[in-house]
C-alpha cells in the first residue's frame, strides 16, 4: 500500500500566496515560487497550486506562475484555477505540472472531463469538491470558489466525477476552511468510503493531531493543509515528525526530522527543559599551563 500523502496547498490571489478563511477573507503570505521551494525543502509529498480568482475572472491560471512553482522543487505539483478545456490542460502540463485540478469545469461539463481523462489519463485529473453544510445539517456541493450552490449531494456528485474519469477527489469543507478546528470528519466519513479513487481531504487543519485523525481512516489517501504551513519555520518537517512520533503512516525521508523532540499543544517543537539546555551549554575547561 502506498504511504499516505501530505499535500501542501498554495492558494494564489492576484499573483501572491494567501491564507484563506471561509473562502471570503484572505491574508497575504508572499511569492508562490518561494513558498513552493520551502514546501519542497521541508519534505512536502505534493503541492497543490490553486488560483482562486481565475474562474471568476474567466481566465486560466497563469502558465508562467505554474512554471515557476513547478521548477521550485522536485515533488509533484497539481495546478487548478479556471481550466476550461483540454487545450488549457495541455498548456499547463507543458508548463510543468503533473496533474490538474478542476472545479467549475467539473460542475458544468462532464463530457469535457471525459475527453480530458481519455487524452491525459485519469491519473492526471483531480476533481475538486467544495462542500458547505447548511444550518439544517445537510451537505451541498458548491462551485466557483464556494459562490454557487450546485444543489448536489456530495457523494452522488463525487461519484459522477469518478464515472467521468477523474482519478482523485479533493474534498474540501468550506465551513472549516481557515478555522483551524480540524477536518469535517462527518463529511469525510460520509464521502470517502463510497469512492473507488484516492481521496484528499482539506479544510480546517490547524495542528498535526487534526491530520492524524483523518489519516487513521482507511478511505483517506492524503491530507491537505494550507494556512498553518505559513509563517512557521520548517512547518512541514515539524508536523511530519510529530506524526511519525505518533506512528502515523507518513513519509519521513527527510534530512531534518525532529525525532524524539518534545512538542507543545499546537504541535510545534517545544523548548527543552532548562536543565537540559544548561547541560548543553559551555563546559568550563581549565587551562593547563605547559
Amino acid at each position, binding site marked *: *500500500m*502506498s*504511504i*499516505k*500523502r501530505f499535500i501542501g496547498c498554495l492558494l494564489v490571489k492576484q499573483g501572491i500566496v494567501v491564507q484563506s478563511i471561509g473562502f471570503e477573507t484572505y491574508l497575504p503570505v508572499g511569492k508562490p515560487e518561494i513558498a513552493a521551494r520551502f514546501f*519542497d525543502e521541508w*519534505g512536502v*509529498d*505534493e503541492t497543490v497550486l490553486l488560483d482562486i480568482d481565475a474562474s471568476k475572472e474567466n481566465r486560466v491560471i497563469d502558465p508562467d506562475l505554474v*512554471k515557476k512553482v*513547478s*521548477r521550485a*522543487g*522536485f*515533488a*509533484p505539483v497539481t495546478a487548478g484555477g479556471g481550466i476550461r478545456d483540454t487545450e488549457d490542460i495541455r498548456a499547463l*502540463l*507543458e*508548463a*510543468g*505540472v*503533473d*496533474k490538474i485540478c478542476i472545479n467549475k469545469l467539473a460542475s458544468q461539463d462532464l463530457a469535457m472531463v471525459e475527453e480530458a481523462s*481519455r*487524452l*491525459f*489519463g*485519469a*491519473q*492526471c485529473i483531480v476533481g475538486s469538491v467544495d462542500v458547505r453544510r447548511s444550518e439544517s445539517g445537510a451537505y451541498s456541493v458548491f462551485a466557483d470558489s464556494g459562490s454557487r450552490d450546485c444543489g448536489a449531494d456530495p457523494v452522488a456528485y463525487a461519484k459522477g466525477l469518478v464515472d467521468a474519469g477523474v*482519478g*482523485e477527489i479533493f474534498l474540501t469543507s468550506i465551513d472549516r476552511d481557515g478555522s483551524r478546528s480540524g477536518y469535517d470528519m462527518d463529511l469525510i466519513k460520509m464521502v470517502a*468510503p463510497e*469512492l*473507488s*479513487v*484516492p481521496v484528499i481531504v482539506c479544510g480546517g487543519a490547524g495542528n498535526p493531531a487534526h491530520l492524524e485523525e483523518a489519516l487513521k481512516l*482507511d*478511505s483517506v*489517501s*492524503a491530507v491537505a493543509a494550507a494556512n498553518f504551513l505559513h509563517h512557521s519555520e520548517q512547518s512541514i518537517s515539524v508536523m511530519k515528525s510529530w506524526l511519525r512520533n505518533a506512528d502515523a503512516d507518513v*513519509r519521513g*525521508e527527510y*534530512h531534518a526530522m525532529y525525532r524524539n523532540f518534545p512538542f507543545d499543544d499546537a504541535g510545534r517543537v517545544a523548548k527543552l527543559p532548562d536543565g537540559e539546555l544548561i547541560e548543553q551549554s559551555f563546559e568550563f575547561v581549565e587551562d593547563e599551563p605547559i
Partner: protein
Amino acid sequence: MNDPTSPSNGTNGNAVPKICILNYGMGNLGSVQNALRFLGIEARIASDADTIEAADAYILPGVGAFGEAMHNLNKLGIIKTLETEILEKAKPLFGICLGLQLLAEDSQEKGFNKGLGWFEGHVVPIEGDALNRVPHVGWNGIDHSGDPAFLKIEQQGSFYFDHSFHLECDPKLVAATCDHGQKMVAAIRQRNIFATQFHPEKSQRNGLKLLRNFVHYCFGNL
C-alpha cells in the same frame, strides 16, 4: 562534499554526454530537464531525427494515455531512428512512467494498443481494492535488485507513482518492485534500457540520486 545528490566531478575525462529528452507531445518534459539541470546536465528536448541521431543517451518521459502516445510517436516518424540508436547502437535509454509502458508489446489501456515491443511484456489495469485504490497515486517504497542504477538508494526508499496500469513481464527484467495490494513492477532493466514506473524527477532526493546514477552510466562510470 558528502551530499549524495551533488553531481560528481569524476568524469574520467569523458566529454559530457548529450542527453536528449524525447518530446512526443505527452508529458512533463520541463520537470525532467529541470532535474537534470540540478545535476549539471543541460539536456535537449527534441523530436527530430537529426538531434536524436546526434545524442548519446535518451530519456523517454510520459504522462497520459498509451494509445495517444503511440499515435504521436508514429506520426513523428522517429520510431525507426530510435530503434537504430537504442536497440542496435545500444545507447542508454531511461523511460519514465508511460515511457516504461510504451516499451512493452501492448497495453489494455482504453482498448488494445500495440507498443514499441522492445521487450516481452504487457500493460494491464491495476486491480484495486478498498485499501489500495486506483489510480495508484503517491509515494511508495520499492524493493530493488541492487542494480547499479539504485546505487546509494536504500531498500524501501520511496518514490512518487501516478498510474492506473502496470507492466507484467519476465521477472528477469525486473529491477524493482512495489506493493499496492499486489506486487507491481517499479523498474526494469534490459541491457542499455532502464525504465521506471515511478517519476524520479518528482521523487525529491531519491529521484535525483537515480537520475544521477543514470548520468554516471552515460559517462561510462557505472
